[in-house]
């Protein structure tokens, strides 16, 4: 990022970190966690110990990081190297990113930025229309549809966690990631000891990955006395039954149909159920028990929005509630072919023009690479 842009963003971040101490806290068991941060145009600083809110605030004021992270794991010695940290456990974390949902609306808010001439295109083309280059940066700007679809995934996840896995509602924290999705953190002592492979299998459960027909009563041969799961059953068996039968009275008829169609047809149905009912989380995040994960309350430098907890998920509007930077006007050179909406105001489209924008919108453009400081 060019120096001028970095300075503008940094000063906006600093102002936020200075004014909003109330939003920025270390998580529980802070002394056992590893912290890390990044500054614009420089590498990651890791293996830090931050004992309390005060130390965190000091660090934020001193360094003004572009991004701040904290481990989901607890260690005896969080400041030592990976092999010496002595892993003690880790919260279960989930990452739901609209990018992974591949929704049809994405093409309407994705911008292709030519790497060599900075030309912006909305539609995907194999070559830049101005200079013929074939290398692009792909930028996606905020979309309410992406957010509401991601919320549905969060709701499915919370349902499985609470009903199948016996996690209490109070043990689940849902956060807006600060860009295009949600982070979910589960603090439940039963699960914190699980290693990476165990978490991988747990994710498969949540995503409904790897289910075989046998588990639902359909064998390769001889299904005459088969019993499929029933409507009232718990867990995936019940969920599958309710999906297949749609109503209790239809169960006998549908069961007959399933048995006649056979094993591979049922496999296809399971695949379909996985697509529609499995929770689409990023498995790599949950499996990684040494990850440093974006710290709640901190700003995401991909957007200038904050990672904040969603108390009421249904009504949560990230482009209002997580947009927490100042609103004094700043002039920037904006090049944004799509209109964006922040704090219930519309901005753009801008075609390489100098505009005066509230700080939060100006920073958003800069973070997305759709504008430059003047």
């Amino acid at each position: 990022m060019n120096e001028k842009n970095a300075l503008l963003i940094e000063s906006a971040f600093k102002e936020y970190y200075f004014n909003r101490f109330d939003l920025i806290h270390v998580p529980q068991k802070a002394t056992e966690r590893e912290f890390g941060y990044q500054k614009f145009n420089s590498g990651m600083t890791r293996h830090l110990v931050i004992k309390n809110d005060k130390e965190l605030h000091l660090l934020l004021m001193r360094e003004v990081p572009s991004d701040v992270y904290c481990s989901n794991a607890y260690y005896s010695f969080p400041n030592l190297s990976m092999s010496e940290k002595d892993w003690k456990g880790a919260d279960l974390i989930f990452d739901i990113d609209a990018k992974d949902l591949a929704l049809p609306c994405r093409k309407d808010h994705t911008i292709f930025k030519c790497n060599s001439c900075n030309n912006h295109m909305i539609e995907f083309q194999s070559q830049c229309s101005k200079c013929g280059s074939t290398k692009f940066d792909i930028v996606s700007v905020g979309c309410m549809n992406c957010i509401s679809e991601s919320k549905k995934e969060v709701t499915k996840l919370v349902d499985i966690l609470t009903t199948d896995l016996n996690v209490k509602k109070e043990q689940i924290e849902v956060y807006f990631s600060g860009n295009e999705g949600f982070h979910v953190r589960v603090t439940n002592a039963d699960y914190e000891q699980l290693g990476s492979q165990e978490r991988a299998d747990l994710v498969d459960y949540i995503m409904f990955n790897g289910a075989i027909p046998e588990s639902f009563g359909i064998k390769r041969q001889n299904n005459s006395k088969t019993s499929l799961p029933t409507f009232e059953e718990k867990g995936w068996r019940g969920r599958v039954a309710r999906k297949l039968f749609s109503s209790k009275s239809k169960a006998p008829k549908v069961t007959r149909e399933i048995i006649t169609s056979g094993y591979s047809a049922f496999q296809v149905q399971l695949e379909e159920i996985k697509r529609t009912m499995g929770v689409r989380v990023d498995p790599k995040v949950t499996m990684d028990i040494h990850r440093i994960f974006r710290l709640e309350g901190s700003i995401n430098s991909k957007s200038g929005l904050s990672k904040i907890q969603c108390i009421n998920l249904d009504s949560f509007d990230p482009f209002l509630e997580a947009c927490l930077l100042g609103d004094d006007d700043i002039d920037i050179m904006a090049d944004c072919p799509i209109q964006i909406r922040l704090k219930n105001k519309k901005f753009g489209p801008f075609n390489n023009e100098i505009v005066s924008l509230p700080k939060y919108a100006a920073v958003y453009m800069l973070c997305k690479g759709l504008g430059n400081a003047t």
Partner: protein
Amino acid sequence: MLKIGAKDLAKYPFLTEAGEYLRNTGLSLEQLGDPDWQPIVEKAYGRIVVASSGQIYGSDLEALDNDSELLSFLVAIILLKSAGIATLIRRFSLAESRRAEKYLQQDLWISRDKKNLELPLKIIQDLFAVNVSIDNEDFVIKVPDYLQRAVHFHEKEWKLVNRRVANGLVYLSAHETVRLIRAELGEYINGKIQSVNVDSIPQSFRHRVEDLVALAKKFSDTTYVSSEYPPCVKHGIEVLEKGENLPHSGRFLLATYLLSKGQTVDQIAPLFKNAPDYNERTTKYQLAHISGSSGSGTKYQCPSCEKLRSESLCFAIPDCDGIINPVQFGKKRKIQ
């Protein structure tokens, strides 16, 4: 308190209560050296021989009512410790855990209606810190306890998604419950044996100890694990050594990898001995087929890292960076 009787100890001679029981009989090691007790020594020796061949020693049910089952187990441990050969101890632990597994399963199954599950559940709880409870016909354990054990199995039916799950609990049959703790049972018995100290043994044991040393020679050429092997291969070997089932794709990896490293079919075959479904003839036949020395004559290549990853058989470590096939492991070093 739960009363553990002679019959229980005959089935589960590795329980801590066995020592106490023995003390109460007043029997000493010296006394066991008396010619009168020679049949016990022979029984103990037989128990080890059977185990070393990969078989499970079968007790006749009548014998469960006398002390010879328990005593022969204890004497077997003394013989094994005196011989001091790790391979024998490992094979013995494995076979004994299989034997106990059978009883454990029976005990769980038979006593489930009578709600008289104290002993089998106590064993599972005390030894492995897993809480098993009963819900109607089923045994239930907590999801995390389940995951920590089931991830070592590679068959799809052990994936959590293929289990009945509700309220944080997994539902299992008696057989599955016991299957889940098999490896730990083996390790527990192995640990028990390791912790025993034997200073001097009666003269009458000597002969059989020497026989054990001779017996072990048969296995001494089968040291396969080398630090040079990639993690995926090491993992496969470990799985087999624990007597766990390795899926076909895992066996294929081991066979092709070891063949590519110049090992012969005869050297590789014994590796599969502990597999639950081992059959020497078919194993050799399949290996010969893979090596290209029979059938179509095509020599099969070791599968790629990518393929192994998709089969959950990859356990990559930093040394794996930059390689695309396990056979390259150790050849290319990360350049930095």
